[in-house]
């Protein structure tokens, strides 16, 4: 068997992030001023020489197709590579049937066309840095048809809630999978990254069909864990965070202002590719005070920005103050306004002079996309 991997970014088990995912899928939520969350998994695939990438989308394809476009930023060769949104139109509006199993069945042509020997599933909301070729080498060395990546977690009452925990024996076999109910603090949590050979996927698909029309691939793996034979692979990458709640999104965004932590996520030699908007460099006016902040191009900053993240084309007028906040692209903060511990979605305008928008680190304030306050 060859070594060709087709990558499937699986959005079917994406959590929601409150208002941020009301009108877009999690994968296209802006992150760290110039990325979308999906860019990290997509870039891992590109950097692992995976040139056929499907994005399994259950819904909200507007933001997804807008970001991915024709796939240009993630394509190595514009003829031989493909980055494709895969959408199950017949089941898109049938709750329960809108599963990754049905999506793959509907888009089977993509796997055929890729001529891949292996299928790699990875989510968009688990930020990780991983060379998937090493996962393949491991799977081959272990003679595994299916390998699942997990990591040790010490605070399961906060992390990976509702996620999947695994038990692993001394031979690295996954012996059991079960949901994290937060009733224990330590354990091994799945990252949702699964590598399987194609015949294994056939087997899973037919098991799903014979079990229940509602079954996802994960449901099959959980139900038939022992008989299928799944190997575990402990994640050893430099960085891993789950963006699975609004407060995790806020906390794990701002902690990346620490340059040393950021260097673990964005490493030299492991570029993170994203869509370019041809925005000009950011402009810092004489009146500005900017400290400890990540700023995207196109911003015009006249006011004060501390410990914050600004997306593209954000305008901070003279006298405005932004602290401990995340401002998404196109928003405008007018003179006299103060924003603390808040997330402002795209194209917001804070126009009321003297308005204070203030949340707490545990419960950041949120302003909806396009709102004028």
């Amino acid at each position, binding site marked *: 068997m060859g070594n060709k991997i087709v990558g499937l970014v699986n959005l079917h088990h994406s959590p929601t992030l409150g208002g941020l995912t009301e009108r877009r899928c999690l994968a296209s939520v802006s992150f760290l001023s110039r990325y979308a969350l999906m860019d990290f998994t997509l870039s891992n695939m590109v950097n692992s020489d995976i040139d056929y990438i499907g994005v399994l989308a259950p819904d909200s394809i507007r933001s997804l197709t807008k970001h991915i476009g024709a796939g240009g930023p993630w394509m190595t060769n514009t003829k031989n590579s493909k980055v494709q949104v895969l959408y199950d139109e017949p089941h898109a509006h049938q709750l329960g049937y809108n599963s990754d199993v049905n999506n793959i069945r509907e888009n089977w042509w993509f796997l055929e066309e890729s001529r891949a020997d292996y299928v790699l599933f990875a989510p968009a909301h688990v930020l990780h840095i991983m060379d998937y070729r090493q996962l393949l080498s491991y799977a081959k060395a272990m003679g595994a048809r299916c390998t699942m990546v997990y990591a040790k977690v010490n605070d399961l009452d906060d992390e990976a809630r509702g996620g999947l925990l695994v038990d692993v024996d001394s031979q690295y076999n996954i012996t059991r999978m079960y949901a994290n109910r937060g009733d224990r603090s330590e354990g091994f949590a799945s990252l949702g990254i699964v590598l399987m050979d194609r015949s294994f996927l056939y087997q899973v698909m037919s098991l799903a069909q014979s079990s229940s029309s509602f079954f996802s691939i994960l449901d099959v793996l959980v139900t038939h864990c022992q008989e299928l034979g799944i190997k575990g692979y402990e994640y050893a990458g430099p960085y891993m965070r789950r963006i699975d709640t609004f407060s995790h999104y806020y906390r794990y965004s701002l902690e990346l202002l620490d340059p040393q932590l950021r260097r673990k996520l964005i490493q030299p030699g492991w570029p993170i590719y994203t869509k370019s908007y041809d*925005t000009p*460099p950011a402009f810092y006016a004489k009146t500005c005070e900017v*400290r400890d902040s*990540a700023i995207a191009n196109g911003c015009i900053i006249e006011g004060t920005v501390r410990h914050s993240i600004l997306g593209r084309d954000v305008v901070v007028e003279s006298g405005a103050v932004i602290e401990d906040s995340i401002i998404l692209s196109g928003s405008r903060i007018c003179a006299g306004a103060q924003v603390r511990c808040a997330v402002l979605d795209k194209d917001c305008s804070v126009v009321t002079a003297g308005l204070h928008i203030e949340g707490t680190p545990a419960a950041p304030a949120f302003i909806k996309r396009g709102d004028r306050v």
Partner: protein
Amino acid sequence: MATGNDVVAMILAGGRGTRLKALTAGIAKPAVFFGGKYRIIDFALSNVANSGIDRVGVLTQYESTVLSTYIGSGSNWGLNGNKSMVSVLPPRETDKGIAWYRGTADAIAQNLAWLDSLHPQQVLILSGDHIYRQDYTEMIELHRTRGADLTVACINVDISEASRFGIMSVDQRGFVTRFDEKPAHPESTLASMGIYVFDYQYLRAALITDAKDPSSEHDFGKNIIPKMLAEKARICAYVYKGYWRDVGTIESLWQANMDLLDPVTEHDLIGCMPRLFSTHTHSDPQYIGPEAEVDDSLINQGAQVYGHVDRSVIFNEVVVEKDARVESSVVMPAAVIRSGVTVRYALIGLQAEVDHDIIGEPGNIAVYTGKEDR
């Protein structure tokens, strides 16, 4: 857009840019970095693309490798679509031998076969090293409605500067009556910008005649246009209003970068829509550190600023370390300004590592590329 298929743009990008000294060591002047994110030729290429002109030839000669690699398929400017193309046209060996481009007119003359194959009505000739934004549609429309053989874009300059330019006199109808290349005593302030719209058949005949003239320097300003005037050709002047600079010297390159720190100029040149296009650098976000101080500056994605930046233009992947000071300077991609170092009134080249003070002054801008000793 009306201009699309009938017009082919030819961008003259072969100049050496000797007066830019170390900044053009190894690269052609149009490939020199500008404005925090761009190369100079981005202006010409973006103007062409945003004017709806789909087919472009770029005439290269001096150090063309970086330039032709940068231009690639033209995808950065959207010129790789189904009806668009960019061809980089360096001098080449033909059945008549090997010939360098002897002048601006000769560069076009040696590519007449390429132009013939595209069947243009008009040819737009541009310089690849000017900083300005222009939609050429209006100029081409003027050329067509006036039935001109040639339309020259021109700009009003200060009389004290006029002797640096090709100066034109025009009649009441806007037709050119006189053209003097760098006159000692200019009689007008209307300067040619080196932007020409020619009717292709007229251009073709003029270039073939010029190529046979042993006394000609094969230059548009010195030879082609004076001869056309002598022959009473219809030369129309199109007056451009707006920011336009030829950044041929260290001082003018520095000054044009500093001009971007004025919000109005910044908006008109790089902030406005349609966008000024450039390459994708796959950079991190720019980061301004906890003790950094940034005032009155343009900073591109990928830059990491821990020190003091004032009145400066900072490119992608530049690092300004803690306790470093950058004032009134331009720092090109991936240069590193080490802690404790002061850079003032300077142009710092690509990937330069600056571990000692680089201090210039207005009128004597310092240039440091870190490659001086090699």
